[in-house]
């Protein structure tokens, strides 16, 4: 009970096949995905272009219907509209009405929620401030640059103060400062107790903010786990020397202390996510079809 309460997103054997007009199979975009996202974590979906990340998010939102399997959000079926009360979604590109201005946009989306008028006004004001667009609040979105639209897109996703936020490639189109702000914001949202599911092909994004990640490749789940665990290389110890065991390390420590020195660092080195990523792709090309199911790490 406790555990199921903590699971915000669950997919079971989720599969999506895109078909053309005549019902012929075109792309198997997602193959039997099993995932669980728990309350309060930042979960990253990582994978190269076309690996099925957006498809997963759309299935979770009920924008697409699964070919087989199931996706549950807050324990409800993805096609249930009532789940939308508690979530926010930032699409891949910001699909907003270009004939509205920033205020109108937020007010319009706000009106779709059961929020009192005063609160809606207040939030509209704060969110425009937060995404740094108060100087352009009365300008139509068609006059905005891509990054500005992206910011309004983010504000619109937060208009209902959601518990769960789905971000599809949140940093594309943002300048370096915007990217940094976006990452800080994601961390801040987590600190407020919200759950974030983001997908990205940018390794740096995920590495910086995510608690856990899933790596998708050609619609298959290749790796799943805590970022720090995945990146830790256990059988290598990073010391500025080689050929030393624990005993020797202890001895070396002792030796350092004995000589009134100070140990700066010693431990397992981390590989970069990029290396992990490339390794997975190499492996899956060597052994196609291998994938992880569920999670086995501690």
């Amino acid at each position, binding site marked *: 009970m406790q555990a199921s309460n903590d699971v915000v997103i669950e997919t079971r054997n989720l599969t999506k096949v895109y078909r053309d007009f005549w019902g012929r199979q075109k792309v198997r975009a997602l193959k039997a995905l099993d995932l669980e996202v728990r309350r309060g974590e930042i979960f990253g979906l990582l994978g190269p272009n076309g690996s099925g990340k957006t498809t997963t998010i759309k299935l979770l939102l009920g924008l697409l219907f699964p070919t087989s399997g199931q996706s549950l959000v807050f324990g409800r079926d993805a096609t249930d509209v009532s789940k*939308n009360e508690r979530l926010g979604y930032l699409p891949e590109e910001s*699909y907003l009405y270009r*004939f509205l201005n920033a205020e*109108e946009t937020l007010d*319009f989306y706000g009106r779709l929620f059961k929020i009192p008028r005063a609160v809606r006004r207040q939030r509209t004001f704060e969110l425009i401030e937060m995404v740094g667009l108060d100087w352009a609040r009365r300008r139509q979105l068609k006059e905005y640059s891509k990054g500005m639209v992206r910011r309004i897109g983010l504000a619109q996703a937060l208009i209902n103060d959601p518990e769960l936020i789905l971000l599809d490639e949140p940093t594309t189109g943002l300048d370096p400062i915007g990217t940094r702000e976006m990452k800080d914001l994601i961390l801040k949202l987590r600190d407020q107790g919200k759950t974030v599911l983001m997908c990205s092909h940018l390794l740096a994004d995920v590495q910086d903010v995510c608690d856990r990640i899933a790596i998708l490749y050609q619609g298959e789940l290749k790796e799943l786990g805590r970022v720090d665990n995945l990146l830790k290389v256990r059988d290598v110890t990073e010391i500025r020397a080689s050929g030393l065991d624990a005993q020797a390390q202890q001895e070396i420590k002792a030796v350092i202390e004995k000589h009134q020195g100070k140990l700066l660092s010693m431990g397992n080195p981390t590989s970069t996510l990029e290396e992990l990523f490339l390794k997975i792709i190499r492996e899956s090309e060597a052994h196609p079809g291998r994938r992880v199911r569920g999670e086995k790490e501690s």
Partner: protein
Amino acid sequence: MVIEYAIVPFLEWLSTSFVYWLMILGGVVAAALIGSWLVVTLRHGPVVAFRCVGRVLSDTVVDLALIAPRRVLAMAWLAVKESIRRRVVVVFAVFLVLLLFAGWFLDPASSEPARLYLSFVLTATSYLVLLLALFLSALSLPADIKNKTLHTVVTKPVRPSEIVLGRILGFTAVGTVLLGIMALMSYVFVVRGLSHTHQVADADLRAVEQIDDGEPAIRQGHSSRVHKHRHEVTVDASGGVRVELEHGHWHDVSAGQSAGETVYQFGPPRGRLVARVPVYARQLRFKDPTGEDAEEGVNVGDEWGYRSFIRGGSLAAAIWTFEDITTDRFPKSSFPDGLPLEMTLEVFRTYKGQTDDPKTIPGILGSLSVGDPKTGKPIEVRLFTAKDFATDVQYIPRQVETPDGRKLDLFKDLAPDGRLEVWIRCIQPMQYFGMARADVYFRARNAQFWVNLAKGYFGIWLQMVLVIGIGAMYSTFLSGPIALLATMGTLLGGFFSRFMGDLGAGAVMGGGPIESLYRLVTQKNLIQDLEPGLKTTVIEMIDHVLEYGLWVTSSLLPEFDRFSFSEHVAKGFDVSGNLAAQCALRSLAFLIPVFVAGYLFLKTREVAR
């Protein structure tokens, strides 16, 4: 100028139509359920299909029951914003240009300018508004799906029902405002277009009657000629001015001084823009030439058979039975000369006068009588001359004299229970009168013209809402251009719906589609029976299936021309509340299923495809 179809009393209409509606609706729902169950069964088996259909059904109930006005209004607001962005106001510019051109081409001096002007503005507005409604509603949602802006919307807690309803309401609001402004512009255009004045100087009048001391008592003359007509003016001894009816209107006159002379200045035309409220007969029956009751009159070979004919110089008669002919309805104060009976008869001649010029052909003599309820026999009121399809007003006096000299009160003696029989006979042998129930009616009073014009625009409004609903419905599952075509197809089908219904019911001469084609190819005429045999049987079988399909289609399509009151307004007849209510309900009867269908299409589609 008569309206050629009869209107059924409201409750009578409602009870039959409602049952019919429920039947059709039930059929459509059943077909949809079975059809979708079969489709899902093909993919996933019968059990899953059963559960699927059941869930969609229960979701539908929830999504329709829990529609929130707040979200519908938000969606409607968006639709309004979108329309403004698409520059719907351009329609005004087009309308203004149309009016400008019309100002040149419409001739206010023609014999029925009011009808000309009114049908023009009504037609122009309805085409413009319907076109606008078509484009707005059919293109909006597909554009949202294509731009993926809908993704951001449907991931908010908004139901598909609210998206469809909001769009319908939003575009309706935009259309209503546009239509309202265009109606005002039309009103001004018509009134100003028809407006003209005449004048006549007192000096130009000549005395027609001298009283003993030589002072002229009554003087007569003609007004100045404007719009190709002039009015006869009579001034009596006390200075009262009377203007004769000409070209369907008269003027109020005021006397003024100009250069030391009295000049009669005419006001704006009156009696042209009217809304006559007719009191139709409940029933029309006939007597044959020997005076016996007959179902119908004679058929003189009129292809439509709408009117029946009675033979002149015989006992043949047409008898209209009116109800509710009471002093309350026709008070003496408003109807001092009697009850005005307007009649428009078709005159069928077996020989003509000297020339074929309609102006010189004398009218055909007829007699007008009222039935005596005691004897069941007619009492002649007066003779009249009828010209083909000319609207004539005859007054039935409040007191009628019988041939033996008794005086009968119209209300007390002839219509004691409000039922009054009006008999018409043709007196000249070898000539015929043709008539239908709606051709003869009492003119109780005139309704306000501007109210009637507003009702005319209400008819256009109903058509517009239907177009918006149908367009929005198609746009939930078709791409923009296809939705546009489908909506247009439905509209055209709607205009021909009655014909299709007749075709489907096998009521059209020459058989069904295939049989007609066969006749066309083999050049057989429509009356000749096909020779019996296998070929004919097959043709008839296919036709039966096609006819059934046509019948179903025609029952599903709105009879679009029925929603238009333009004919009434242009011909100067009041649009009765009954007619307006029937049309309003009829469009609602289409809108509800159309909306639900739109909702279902949107709900069961993948928005992100």
